[in-house]
């Protein structure tokens, strides 16, 4: 009888231990909470406005921004990057399109800085990088997108010649198979052969696709299609990129293309594949906190710029669903975009937190990792927040 009871008791005890160990282990190691939070359009707009504030305060009279800043040390770490400058100009025109105060004037100062660096190249114009023998195409691509954004907003055609010139230059960098040469050689007035960038190809795709919307039928669309096809079918293999590139610029390009024609099956499949790249990164990033435990089980929190690019990617995929319907489950992009916006709002340094630092104006409204912020932390986060607004306002 005793043995009978102990056997039953033993089975129950073992069963109970198994349940407890299973649930605790599962929660601690595998199913950690995704701390996306819940944000409203009002909170997202306020966060974006604070970022525009940072960009306005931290812009020099000539239009150049504070590039890299160590908040605890109160130290300007120097450096600069013209592609990021152009990207930030785009983000600010996006902010202006959402009606955020000061954004247009700040963006225009950024454009002035770029316009002073224009040189003839590839039959058109490019943004030059003084002192360098070769020039990256990214700045020209992102500034073209930015100026087109300005044109949509203001209706002004002041920059049309520059836009066409940038488009002509970008088209000259595109190879027959759709690959985009990373740099232009000033001496030969020709693309530097055999060098390709992780992101410039997507940026050129976005720019050329947008130029087709601005100047329909002027030849930019077919070049954009060639780049898009290359990105969708060849790029990762041809450029030996593994894992596949988490290319938010390509997502922008697809969304832009979908605004003037329906996406092909190949392009739709590529959009779905991009979603498969963005989604897991967002879920993983949302599990990271500043706690000792998640540092060891999930790693440290990602850069604001990194998180922002994911939001730019998913918001672009959501835009595609608005134009093409739910392609391959892309409607989940709305939920992922909410998540990124929630994380960004929660991690942004607000005015109260900024007071703890030596120079609050260089801190408030920005995103930091290890106490350091860089211009692109504000660029990608601002764009991601702004592009989440229509999703929140649509109630999806």
């Amino acid at each position, binding site marked *: 009888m005793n043995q009978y009871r102990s056997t*039953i008791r033993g089975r129950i005890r073992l069963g109970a231990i198994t349940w407890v160990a*299973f649930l605790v282990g599962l929660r601690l190691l595998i199913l950690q909470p995704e701390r996306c939070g819940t944000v409203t359009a009002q909170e997202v707009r306020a966060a974006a406005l604070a970022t525009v504030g940072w960009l306005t305060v931290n812009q020099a009279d000539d239009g150049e921004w504070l590039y890299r800043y160590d908040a605890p040390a109160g130290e300007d770490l120097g450096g600069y990057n013209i592609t990021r400058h152009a990207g930030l100009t785009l983000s600010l025109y996006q902010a202006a399109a959402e009606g955020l105060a000061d954004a247009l004037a700040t963006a225009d100062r950024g454009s002035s800085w770029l316009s002073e660096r224009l040189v003839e190249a590839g039959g058109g114009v490019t943004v030059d990088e003084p002192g360098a023998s070769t020039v990256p195409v990214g700045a020209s691509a992102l500034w073209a997108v930015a100026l087109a954004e300005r044109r949509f907003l203001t209706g002004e055609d002041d920059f049309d010649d520059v836009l066409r010139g940038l488009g002509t230059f970008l088209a000259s960098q595109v190879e027959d198979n759709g690959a985009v040469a990373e740099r232009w050689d000033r001496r030969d007035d020709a693309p530097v052969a055999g060098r390709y960038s992780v992101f410039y190809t997507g940026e050129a795709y976005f720019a050329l696709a947008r130029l087709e919307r601005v100047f329909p039928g002027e030849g930019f669309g077919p070049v954009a299609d060639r780049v898009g096809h290359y990105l969708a079918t060849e790029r990762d293999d041809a450029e030996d990129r593994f894992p596949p590139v988490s290319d938010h610029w390509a997502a922008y390009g697809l969304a832009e293309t979908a605004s003037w024609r329906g996406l092909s099956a190949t392009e739709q499949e590529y959009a779905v594949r991009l979603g498969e790249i963005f*989604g897991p990164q967002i879920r993983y990033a949302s599990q990271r906190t500043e706690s000792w435990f998640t540092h060891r089980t999930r790693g440290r929190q990602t850069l604001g710029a990194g998180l922002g690019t994911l939001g730019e990617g998913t918001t672009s995929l959501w835009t595609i669903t608005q134009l093409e319907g739910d392609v391959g489950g892309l409607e989940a992009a709305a939920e992922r975009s909410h998540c990124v916006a929630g994380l960004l709002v929660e991690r942004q340094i607000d005015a109260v937190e900024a007071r703890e630092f030596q120079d609050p104006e260089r801190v408030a409204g920005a995103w930091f990792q290890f106490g350091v912020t860089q211009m692109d932390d504000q660029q990608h986060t601002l764009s991601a927040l702004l592009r989440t607004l229509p999703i929140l306002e649509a109630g999806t």
Partner: protein
Amino acid sequence: MSVWLAIVLLIAVVNPARRRAELANGTPVIAAGAVLTLGAVALLGWWGNGLIDALDISAPTLRVGVGLVLAVGGLVDLVRPLPGRGEGVAGMGGAVIPVFFPVLFRPELALVAVSVSVDAGLGALTVAAAIGLGLVAVPTAQRWARPLNVVAATALIVLAVDRLIDGVFAL
């Protein structure tokens, strides 16, 4: 997730031949325990979306969890010998102990129940669980228990990989 996939998944995670091997109870008692388990599974499934919301887990992350757990469970079932028949409460009380707990209502089944409910719906879960648990009540000849266990464990590993991939590469 289709209903068919849900059915195969539930049969594999229940592993009827292995569970039956653990039970010394008669068929009516096992059937009663299976019904009890079905009720618990359906309850969990009904709560599924609310539960993962409360835990701040997305459906894809849950799928990843299911995949990892089932992969380990499948490997363990594949390499470990069939368990012997343990003791339990006599009579219909045996439907609760040991049939319902600890033999049939296991944590991996609970996890799969929530995931299937979230991905395929409560109806699909209920049908699939009824089939999987119902098979435990079907007497199995001793000589078939081992091969059926191998089939279920192998299927579980394959399905675990499927769930894992589906979870990791989801938007």
